[in-house]
């Protein structure tokens, strides 16, 4: 049923948006999965794995910041794009159009807060273990994958 799929087809590993680039559209996943990756000090952190119905790149339509993360396809994925201009026209006609995005962002903020608390707890534990000489910091860190 590939002819019946909407959006653009991406293959495994294809980059959909790249960290640091300016963007002018957001994306909604129609089929398949994508991973959201952030590079920091030569390390890659997988922030989330997103699936059908999830969206990403919404920060680009709400502001003028560069993409905070890279998003790449995990296997075959179909992704639909929505330009900033079209999105804003809709929002100005019908503010409730942005409700789902606001809800999702609120959910992400909550996840982020929980992750921060976990990180703070781990750091405290790490410091205690390190001081006791029974802990060596790992070479690379990878945040646990979450289904946003």
């Amino acid at each position, binding site marked *: 049923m590939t002819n019946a*799929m909407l959006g653009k087809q991406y293959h495994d590993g294809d980059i959909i948006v790249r960290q640091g680039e300016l963007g002018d559209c957001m994306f909604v996943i129609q*089929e398949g999965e994508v991973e959201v990756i952030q590079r920091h000090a030569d390390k890659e952190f997988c922030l989330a794995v997103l699936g059908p*119905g999830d969206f990403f790149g919404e920060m680009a339509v709400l502001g003028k910041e560069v993409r905070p993360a890279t998003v790449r396809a995990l296997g075959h994925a179909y992704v639909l*794009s929505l330009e900033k201009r079209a999105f804003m026209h809709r929002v100005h*006609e*019908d503010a409730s159009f942005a409700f789902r995005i606001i809800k999702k962002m609120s959910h992400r903020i909550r996840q982020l807060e929980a992750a921060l608390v976990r990180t703070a707890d781990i750091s405290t534990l790490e410091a205690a273990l390190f001081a006791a000489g029974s802990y060596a910091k790992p070479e690379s860190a990878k945040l646990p994958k979450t289904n946003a």
Partner: protein
Amino acid sequence: MSIATAPQLQDGSRIGVIGGGPGGSFFSYFLLQFAERVGLDLEVDLYEPRDFTVPGPAGCNMCGGIVSESLVQALAVEGIMLPPSVVQRGIDSYYLHMDVGNVRIETPLQEKRIAAVHRGGGPRGLQGKEFGGLDQYLLDMAVAQGASVVRAGVQSIAFNNGRPVVKTQSGKQADYDLLCFAVGVNIGAKLLENIPFAYKPPRTTRTYICEFCLGREVIEREMGSSMHVFLLPMKRLEFAALIPKGDYVTVCMLGDDIDKEMVNAFLTSPEVKEALPAHWRLPADFCHCSPRISIAAAEPAYGDRVVFVGDCGATRLYKDGIGAAYRTAKAAAKTAVFHGVSAAQFRRHYQPICRRIEHDNDIGRFVFWISRLLQGAAFARRAIWRMVCDEQRLSGGQRRMSMVLWDTFTGSAPYRHVLLRALHPGFWGRLLWNFVAANRGVYTDIEVSND
């Protein structure tokens, strides 16, 4: 009635929706969704006697079956994903056919953003049930949100102390706090006779739609994911399109009262024959209909405890009727939940959306008038064709004529945007150059397949 004392929906309020097409389903879905967000408990009865899973006219809402680019995107953001069991084909490009030549036009992002669907159970004589129809999908969505479907035709509407009372053909009756009409353009006079305000139904014209079964492989090979659009010098024909679906291709003719003669002339024209497989012959019997479409909005599309959405309220000229149903239904639902159900509230919060659609249609009428003028002159058709061919070498944003035509034919953008694109000096500069070049035989290296 002052706004302070205007009727509002409260916990336990009952809402009747007449018509289970996209307008009725979207209205029910959004009404219940908004109510849930504010903790309001509503009951919605959706009256629809038809079974949209049945092939042929009994389960069909008679439409070309295109979900526009803008609606596909809007639904995706709303969290309404059109599944591959409903989308028969994603469209990412189109062939423009004119008597002077044809050309394939890619969309800038080469992304399938238009969905070709069947509204009902499919054409008469359909074998197999691989795809479901859009109307049933949207109806199921409304039911999942909490609406109850009443499988009965509505015989009459009465008003009791200002509250609408619906009487079905089986004699049952129920009273409501709000009644939403989503009955398309074929609204029966009997349903309107007790409406306590002077409702003027939309003005309509006749169009033509038919379906030919060509088989999956043939459609894949001959048409792929491209729509075929025809700009032919035929009087009263605004444009026509071939829309590839699963096993079928839908022919859609729009214009001023399309009649049998025009249909025959179009289907037997060399341009249509060229677009269809070489062995194809017009079958003796095939599923076809001549539905009426709205060309001017109803007035007024609301009253106290009554609102009209979709085609019987306001819809877009020639295109994107499902998109207009989405916009009007959502605006009406939002008004009902957040502001109230009085005529004053609908005038304040719902009418602006209907007016915006109607104002855009005024621009659309002008766009089609220009298009008719150009179609009527051979030198203009040559210039347009040459300009479109030439543009295929340019990047997306510079394909001005291609985008004007794409947005006009698919309904993907408001007519205001189409006009603004067409008023760009770059558009006119290039068009004038092509007027000269096409009619003086100026040669440029245009790579165009004339297949």
